[in-house]
């Protein structure tokens, strides 16, 4: 366990019951909600205001990729724009590295945006009259860094996304995937701690999208950056995110790791999303194993063994290649449980026995 001060240091982005209400009477509507607990429908009827984001609290830690998944109109784009104050929250606080964004004056806000928070847009937004290199250097140019210096740093960023050869080209000469890479290079040129990704890969075709997802994750991890990643695609969230928040109608209805969400969807809405997701690489041995005591006829010591973090794919391979119909799960020479063919099939189906799911977390840690 971390101490409280360590936790505070490691949290880069923190939202404390943040609300965004759109409309002329947003403040009255906010007060009405706080005092009388009006519903969204009532707020719309009585005050003519639309609730965009409703009571969201979350924390993004250093080095973490935090995905916010939701369909259009769920408030995810509004939420991410509050992290660099492109939109002001109606109520609640946003803390970046422990500092309240609302308390910053204009100069301090500019400074925070320029140095600490990068942003990548769905439509990329490369300035068409500038070369790729000049686009990548934009953030530093705004900060008044000399041309030689900013072009050097931007060149390095372009090298990281594999576009060194394209530095002198113009954006319209690049494919969609390459343009989005430039967008990413522009964000990392300023060396921010947090990168806000607003559905960056949504407009790309599936193969390029997968490739960029993997590259993005690798790059972010190797640079030690944090990212808030908005998407409407749960599969993308699962590929990229360390943690995932699912948003609907302005509310976060579930937050957790990909495995949490797939195995224990909070409600029918989430369950419906999860239904089509392949479990093969998500579900781990510790989630589907049963206690050795439940299978007295098996001798765990003789079975092929796998670690608790082995995924279904690996377990299936192991079972087939060993020719048996059961595996042990062991860590450090200690048997944690066994997995039978039945357990494996249930795991693929995505329906582990409830008592297992509840009993496993201690093993996982």
């Amino acid at each position, binding site marked *: 366990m971390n101490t409280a001060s360590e936790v505070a240091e490691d949290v880069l982005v923190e939202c404390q019951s943040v609300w965004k209400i759109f409309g002329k009477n947003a403040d009255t509507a906010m007060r009405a909600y706080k005092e009388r607990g009006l519903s969204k429908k009532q707020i719309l009827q009585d005050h003519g205001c639309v609730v965009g984001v409703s009571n969201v609290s979350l924390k993004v830690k250093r080095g973490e990729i935090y995905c916010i998944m939701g369909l259009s109109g769920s408030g995810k784009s509004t939420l991410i724009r509050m992290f660099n104050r492109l939109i002001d929250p109606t109520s609640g606080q946003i803390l970046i590295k422990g500092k309240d964004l609302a308390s910053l004056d204009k100069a301090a*806000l*500019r400074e925070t945006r*320029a140095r600490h928070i990068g*942003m990548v847009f769905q439509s990329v937004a490369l300035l068409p009259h500038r070369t790729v290199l000049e686009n990548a250097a934009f953030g530093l140019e*705004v900060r008044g860094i000399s041309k030689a210096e900013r072009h050097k740093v931007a060149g390095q960023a372009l090298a990281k996304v594999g576009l060194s050869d394209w530095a002198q080209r113009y954006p319209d000469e690049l494919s969609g995937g390459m343009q989005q890479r430039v967008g990413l290079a522009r964000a990392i040129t300023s060396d921010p701690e947090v990168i806000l990704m607003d559905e960056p890969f949504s407009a790309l075709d599936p193969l390029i999208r997968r490739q960029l997802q993997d590259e993005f994750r690798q790059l972010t991890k190797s640079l030690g950056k944090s990212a808030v990643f908005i998407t409407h695609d749960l599969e993308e969230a699962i590929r990229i995110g360390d943690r995932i928040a699912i948003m609907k109608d302005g509310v976060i209805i579930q937050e957790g790791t990909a495995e949490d969400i797939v195995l224990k969807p909070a409600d029918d809405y989430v369950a419906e999303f999860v239904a089509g997701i392949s479990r093969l690489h998500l579900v781990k041995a510790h989630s589907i194993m049963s206690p050795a005591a439940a299978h007295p006829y098996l001798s765990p010591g003789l079975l092929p063994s796998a670690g608790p973090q082995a995924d279904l794919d690996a377990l299936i391979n192991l079972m087939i290649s060993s020719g048996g119909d059961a595996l042990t799960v062991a860590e450090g020479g200690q048997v944690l449980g066994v997995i039978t063919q039945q357990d494996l099939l249930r795991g693929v189906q995505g329906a582990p026995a409830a008592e297992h799911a509840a009993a496993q977390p201690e093993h996982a840690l």
Partner: protein
Amino acid sequence: MSPGEFAAAFDDVVDARLEWLSDNGAWFFDGLNDVLHTGYQAIYSGLTLLPFWVLILVFGALGWRLTASWRFALGAMLGLLLCVAMGLWPQTMSTLALVLSATSMALIIGIPLGVAAGLMPSLDRVSEPVLDLIQTLPPYIYLLPAIALLGYGPGTALLATFIVAIPPVVRLTSLGIRMTPRVFIELGQASGTTGWQQFFKIRLPFALPSIMAGVNQGLMMAFGMVVIAGIVGSGGLGEVIYGAIRTLDIAMSINAAIAIVILTLILDRMAQSASRPGRRAAHES
């Protein structure tokens, strides 16, 4: 009060006001006339200082540089030579000086105004109807008050031409400024730009094509007006045409019309080429 009496009373009021204005504002209008006249005169003297063939070569070189087409450059030089051959060179230069001075005034005042209107919707709501009014009234209308206040001569022609040339400049500048795509505004903010940086690095580059279209349109409007302004003693080709109409000198009016067409074509092509900047020329920052 019968309609006739009402109209007469209204006319009296207008006349009285105009008279009052020209009596009490004489110092202002005389000063304005001096300024306009001096500006025009400076450009005209500049243009006629050089022998015609030097100027024609300058036009050829400028046209070649802007349009990158030697055909256009050659055509422009031949056209101007034709003006010389028709004996209309000084008048052609006088018209050019009028158009250039009126258009520069329209740009100096119109572009900042358009930028302001583009950034402030409230100003735009006020300026739009005014511009509509200016553009719907027949251009002749501006000659009368101008002649009443400034008197007969190029100053009046310049003012009336300026009024006609300014609406497209303001309008297209404001449109260009307003048209910055939202995501680029967000990009600017998210990158930590100051207000000035946001304007010069993001809004202005996007607005530039529209602003240049406004410049071109202003120029064309000025050409149209400068001929009409021949009536108030603008000098130049307009006055030649007006004189030819009064004396039914058809040959002369056609000559002058040809000279105007040549001048308009040359300036239009050059302005259009200048307004389509190669991206390589536009990105020096």
